[in-house]
């Protein structure tokens, strides 16, 4: 069985696609694109698809990952093009690489997020971030599947920056807008961008008047410089060897 790893984006309005919605759309896209997907054995065979940590509903992403198992070998570039065409614009397949081994999930160590906060004064945000950074621990609450949980939102945050010269936020009207960039380590329970925002509320009473717009820019292995490396890079050499 050939295994292919795929990077895809959730963009614009389609960032409101939930993970379940995406999974259904992706299975239909496999059929529309004629992908020779492998199925699990058993009474109700399921297509072989495994997802790596999906962005929350409403959060855009340039870096979502999944892995599929195939009955026949396909050219990953053609697979990418066929799947991208079969999905709605806004659910965009960006990259496909033949897996060289190892586990995709193990290569997801951290995520890089950008949060646009319309109508928030960057100076106010800077002060809140300073208070957050100074704290040893910032306890926040969130409803999880196990009920309401309290956990630390501080220690998983590796980097938290207010962008020096805010660019114009994507598609939003010309109002002041503060922009926050985060690099957060993959931990359990996961610390999500909204948990960091809760943390800013806890330490500095930061209350964004408008719903923030969040985008995941990257996720993958953490480099020594606290940057994030594409988890498919490790497969890319292997794929070249496999093909030729």
């Amino acid at each position, binding site marked *: 069985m050939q295994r292919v790893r795929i990077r895809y984006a959730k963009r614009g309005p389609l960032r409101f696609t939930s993970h379940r*919605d995406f999974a259904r759309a992706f299975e239909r896209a496999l*059929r529309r694109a004629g992908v020779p997907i492998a199925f699990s054995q058993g009474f*109700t*065979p399921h297509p072989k698809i495994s997802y790596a940590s999906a962005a929350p509903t*409403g959060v855009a992403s340039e870096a979502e990952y999944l892995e599929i198992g195939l009955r026949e070998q396909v050219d990953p570039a053609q697979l990418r093009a066929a799947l991208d065409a079969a999905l709605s614009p806004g659910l965009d397949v960006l990259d496909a690489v033949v897996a060289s081994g190892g586990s995709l999930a193990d290569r997801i160590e951290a995520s890089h997020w950008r949060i646009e906060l319309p109508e928030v004064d960057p100076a106010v945000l800077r002060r809140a971030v300073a208070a957050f950074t100074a704290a040893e621990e910032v306890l926040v609450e969130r409803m999880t599947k196990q009920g309401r949980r309290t956990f630390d939102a501080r220690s998983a945050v590796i980097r938290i920056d207010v962008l020096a010269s805010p660019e114009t936020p994507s598609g939003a009207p010309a109002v002041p807008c503060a922009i926050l960039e985060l690099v957060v380590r993959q931990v359990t329970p996961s610390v999500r961008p909204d948990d960091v925002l809760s943390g800013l509320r806890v330490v500095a009473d930061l209350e964004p008047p*408008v719903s923030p717009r969040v985008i995941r820019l990257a996720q993958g292995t953490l480099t020594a410089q606290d940057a994030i490396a594409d988890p498919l890079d490790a497969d890319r050499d292997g794929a070249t060897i496999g093909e030729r």
Partner: protein
Amino acid sequence: MSVPSTTPRPAAANSGDGSSPARPTPRRDPEPSVWPRLEPLLPQVTKPIQYVGGELGAVVKDWDAAAVRWALMYPDAYEVGLPNQGVQILYEVLNELPDVLAERTYAVWPDLEKLMRAHGVPQFTVDAHRSVRGFDVFGVSFSTELGYTNLLTAIDLAGIPLLAADRTDADPVIVAGGHAAFNPEPIADFVDAAVLGDGEEAVLEITGIVREWKAEGSPGGRDELLLRLARTESVYVPRFYDVDYLPDGRIQRVVPNRADVPFRVHKRTTMDLDAWPYPKKPLVPLAETVHERYAVEIFRGCTRGCRFCQAGMITRPVRERSITTVGQMVREGLEFSGFHEVGLLSLSSADHSEIGDMCSGLAQQYEGTNVSLSLPSTRVDAFNIDLAQELSRNGRRTGLTFAPEGGSERIRKVINKMVSKEDLIRTVVTAYTNGWRQVKLYFMCGLPTETDDDVLEIADMAHEVIRAGRAATGSKDIRCTVSIGGFVPKPHTPFQWAPMERPEVIDGRLRMLKQAINADRSLGRAIGFRYHDGEPSLIEGLLSRGDRRVGAVIRRVWEDGGRFDGWSEHFSYQRWVQAATEVLPAFGVDLDWYTTRQRDELEVLPWDHLDSGLDKDWLWQDWQDALGEYEQDDCRWTPCFDCGVCPSMDTEIQIGPTGRKLLPLTPVTGLKLPTGAQQ
């Protein structure tokens, strides 16, 4: 920009002669998109994806290039509305015209409604997020009357005056369609027009009239446009008809108040379904919806003659789609959508003249794939099981549904559902012995002439089904579910004169039935019991057979917060009773008068001026036959019994067999690359 304000009603809103001077149409084009104002609200609501659009099959066209613009609504939540066949078909038919644009809108949930009101965001289409008020025509498809309050929410959110009489040339023409439009009187104050029957050709005709009127510079304004629509004799414009009442509250007469307006408005019938193979490009949602399948109608109409069934009465005659067209639609629909389930829809699918070949042909074509085929059918006979067996060749045999509808032989004669108890038991046992473990039996409660005994016989039937099933299979691992719906008398059926039963009586019978089922513990354990309370049915009855006075009740309920009445968690019986108590006495009538009262032969019914083709004398005779427990055969295989539809509508039964077969599909392998893609 805020919600468009209600334009004051022009003083000369028409003097009644239709000759008011042509005014420039002040229709304002909507803001390009309400999306920038909607988007910040979406993170605060449940399932925001339902408001986003972007489905496969969705079409966004250039606003300025369109001569006629339709907003189409299914007045329920997106998850129910999106799969609706009617809206999908009209959407596709309209968008195929180069100079016409159609977009869709659905009922927004109360969480978003509240935010939209707070932020001044109008009712929008999901395709290009345009304000509904900017369209020329706002078409609303009603499968059920319980969507009426959602219609009012949409009109109000759109910034359109609630009452048709208050609208100006800046407002769209609101057209109701769907089965409930066969009696649109309860919403006559709120809609500008209603269309009866099949929509495919009706929307094209309306489009043509709007196109021409606009091209002429909209002479005579809204009034002239409505008059032109009314003159077709197939578009009902309530404002052109006056209703007079008798002192006792009954209707005296309904007459046109304008020259040139027909006394009766006739339903539309689309003949030759092979010429209308829609949907070709089904909408494939990102959000989860109630049906995730490619659905194809294999025929329209039904002459089985079940007396409670409005659909079977108003969609006559039977018009089959040929086996080859069905095969082609399934193939193309699946390729386009990526769905893996196919539903072969109709009112009684096993009655298609080539259903055997159709099922085996499709089963063969898709053998070895994970495509599953389903046949939502209700006939109780062994043939049905052969079909189900064919369709589940390599799949699971989880459940089969049969609908005897009535518990006793007697009541089944009343409703004209010809199936004997022996047949039913034999059929269900055949299903069990062929591997099905679960069988669902569907019944109705509250049928005309029904007694406690008729309902209690359902328990006997269920017991015997389990007993016989255990004996035949030697296994205790078989189940049956008894599912009970409330009977609602509908216009244009033989039961349109029938009194409804009170909710307390219905609920009492259901309690007795539950006890009777569980009286035998061993058998009762294998029998599931599902039912609906009597109260929602009573309100549905009010709305189904109501007249224009009921509009005030709907409005009161809506003002009091009534929304999503088809959803048990939102429906409030108390609210409806309260509104009826407040509003109806002024007219000298009450809730009982509309629901539990039996009508006599000469009463003018609110929908008598709307022509479904059924001869009222025949309907009355069939009602008398029902009371006499006399059955009526099907005109497809016995001589015509003169229901009146074919001669009055100039239609005829269209059935096969064509003798053709479905050929094996050539399997296509390899990735489907987008055209022009780099390799």
